[in-house]
């Protein structure tokens, strides 16, 4: 009889509390400080309320889940499950992973923290993969190992509508910070491994989209073993503007006909750094 494995992630995965229940996974809400008041993503703060505050110029600060909340959740889950696979947001973007690794030391290998540097839609895909692997009979340690070996098999490109929030936030590498200009530019960022970094710049949305499409095709062909529907998950993420995301999805499906494509809002902890109106495309290699 194989051991019973629970999959835990945080709300950066874009998985809502409701979806989590349906999928049979657990989602730790990320806390936000907005004008010194604490909110929890998808618990006390929805997307609409968040953007309203962000655009009104409120001071939005992200934070990681408190150790207490993490350990309480784990303890609660372990009453029912034998082991936990914990998939936090990328260690390059938050200290959550580091903290979780530390906290897990007190749980006698029952909690396996996955450091696979995913965020948003690709983090969500990791959660789905973990669930699948546990159903296939892997234990928590094997799942962790599998996901970490798989960590470079995904990439994300995000086009920003404005540089404003990026400059304000500061959680970017110097290369990205240098793209200051009088001109209205739409920077395209990439998340590859650890860092959120500048990839390219565009002057118009269509230019930016075509840069992203070319980049993601290049990744599929040269890194993930081919741009085919049975090999690749395609994902679109956005901040605030669902219509634009749908439109972009149609355009992507013309480029990549027959692909599995999901649309998800970007998590608020990413959104507060890049602002509304961003569009992202991501892909990850399907597990066999």
């Amino acid at each position: 009889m194989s051991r019973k494995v629970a999959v835990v992630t945080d709300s950066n995965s874009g998985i809502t509390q409701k979806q989590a229940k349906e999928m049979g996974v657990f989602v730790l809400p990320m806390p936000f400080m907005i004008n010194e008041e604490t909110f929890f993503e998808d618990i006390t703060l929805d997307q609409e309320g968040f953007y309203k505050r962000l655009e009104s110029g409120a001071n939005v600060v992200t934070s990681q889940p408190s150790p207490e909340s993490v350990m309480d959740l784990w303890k609660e889950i372990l009453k029912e499950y034998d082991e936990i696979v914990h998939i936090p947001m990328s260690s390059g973007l938050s200290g959550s992973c580091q903290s979780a690794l530390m906290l897990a030391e007190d749980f006698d290998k029952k909690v396996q923290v996955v450091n696979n540097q995913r965020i948003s839609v690709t983090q969500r895909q990791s959660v789905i993969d973990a669930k699948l692997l546990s159903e296939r009979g892997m234990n928590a340690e094997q799942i962790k190992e599998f996901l970490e070996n798989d960590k470079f098999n995904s990439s994300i490109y995000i086009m920003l509508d404005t540089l404003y929030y990026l400059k304000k936030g500061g959680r970017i590498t110097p290369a990205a910070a240098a793209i200051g200009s009088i001109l209205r530019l739409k920077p395209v960022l990439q998340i590859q491994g650890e860092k959120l970094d500048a990839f390219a710049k565009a002057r118009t949305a269509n230019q930016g989209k075509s840069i992203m499409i070319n980049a993601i095709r290049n990744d599929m062909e040269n890194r993930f073993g081919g741009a085919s529907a049975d090999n690749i998950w395609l994902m679109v993420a956005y901040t605030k503007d669902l219509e634009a995301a749908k439109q972009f999805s149609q355009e992507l499906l013309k480029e990549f006909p027959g692909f599995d494509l999901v649309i998800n809002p970007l998590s608020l902890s990413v959104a507060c750094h890049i602002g509304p109106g961003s569009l992202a495309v991501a892909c990850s290699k399907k597990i066999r």
Partner: protein
Amino acid sequence: MTNTIDAKILAKMFLAGAKNLESKKEWINDLNVFPVPDGDTGTNMTLTIMSAAKDVAAMKDIDMLSLCKAISSGSLRGARGNSGVILSQLFRGFTKSIREKEQLDILMLADACDKAVETAYKAVMKPKEGTILTVAKGISVKARELAEEGCSDFTVFFDEVIRCGDEVLERTPEMLPVLKQAGVVDSGGQGLMQVLKGAYDAFMGKELDLSISEAPHTESGKANAQPDIEIKYGYCTEFIIMLNRNFNIKTEMDFKEYLESIGDSIVVVADDDVVKVHVHTNDPGLAIQRALRYGSLSNMKIDNMRLEHEEKLFKESQAASEKAASEEPAPHKEVGFIAVSAGDGINEIFKGLGVDHMIQGGQTMNPSTEDMLNAIEKVNADTVFILPNNKNIILAANQAQMMVKDKKIVVVPTKTVPQGITAIINYVPDLSAEENEENMKQEIHRVKTGQVTYAVRDTVIEDKEIKQGDYMGIGDSGILSIGGDVSDVAFRMVKEMMDEQLELISIYYGEDITENDAEQLRAQIEREYPSCDIELQYGGQPIYYYIISAE
């Protein structure tokens, strides 16, 4: 008659060619097809040849090898504009062929002409016929023909070669329709002919003012005919003799011989009833006394060059040390950018996009290869991208690329400022220089550019009649609109540029346009194209009222 040419004669011929070109500069400028107030062919070619002439004029002991080196490297460094670059390549090929010789005969000249043409054709990516290249080729073919016929008389040789060059030049409008329509011959070809004609005059012993001291527009403001060495003769003495007795070849020779015995840098130009005299001597009185034999004197000017020289040296060293103190070395980078730019607004835009060094110029004055080399030196990077941003500067940039050995230079052939902006926006730090070059070259064709300026003379282009002072909207491949109102011309130009694919219109307004006028144009364009993003930026560029791009 002499049947060989030595280094001294060749130097004299070169200087005379340069001077003649300079004197015909404005006339050649007027031959430009587009009547835009640009860096013109005559000016560009003159600046190119003057850069070499300065070096040649400063030479003390002239031998063939050092003369050839001076002509070649001086003109390569000074090369500006397409015709200037081609001229410098002609000189490079020519001098390469003769540098080991002491005396030149006609066969050697024919070889040198062949080499010159071969080198120049190679320097141009897509050689176009009906240009300076065609004229040069015609000359080299004629030279070869004469040499093979056994022609040994230089007078006949030069005569024939120049006549042939003129004939080819006259035929250039048949080869290039734009020339025919504008009713002109090729300006670069005309420039080359003027160099040859000046050289021929010097060969024939016609006395010419060969002092290069008044070359205009040189970098330091004033040309430096005097090298920084000790001055042998201290007083620069100039005057004009108003002749009251016969001044024939014989008296001229006598007079010059006398002047040579008391000084150097002698110029004696006789013209009907006046003689212009220039000599460097330690005893100006002797020159004046002798001159009084021929007539009365006027416009007398005597300068103590030793004092001036010291002052100049002092000022130069002062300036150099100040400059050194103010310039901190830039930190080393992997990749750097140089852009040719004009206008404080455009400068700021390029700076914001990460350009390390701006070369001023582009619209009114084409920077030389040497300006490029200086800029490259200032950018402390392993790979340097150059954005020429003007089609008449690309060749000079390519030339600089070939002369730089310690850095990798990538010239992105941007023909306009918006193309330059597009190129640097598309730079991706993660990619290799080659990938970036390829990518930028593709992307720059996605942006259309239109520029509004005024016509400097009447002409007809593409069946459009243009009057001097008209405003013209010039697109990537021709004139889009003409008229008397600058905003209207700009607006109609944009309408010509637009198609359904385009989604962003950027307007960069020049120094002669008020923000208010520019804003009104923006609003007008916005009403016409409500689905487009319109961006208005202050460019501050001279000459071009508006630079507008659509992408």
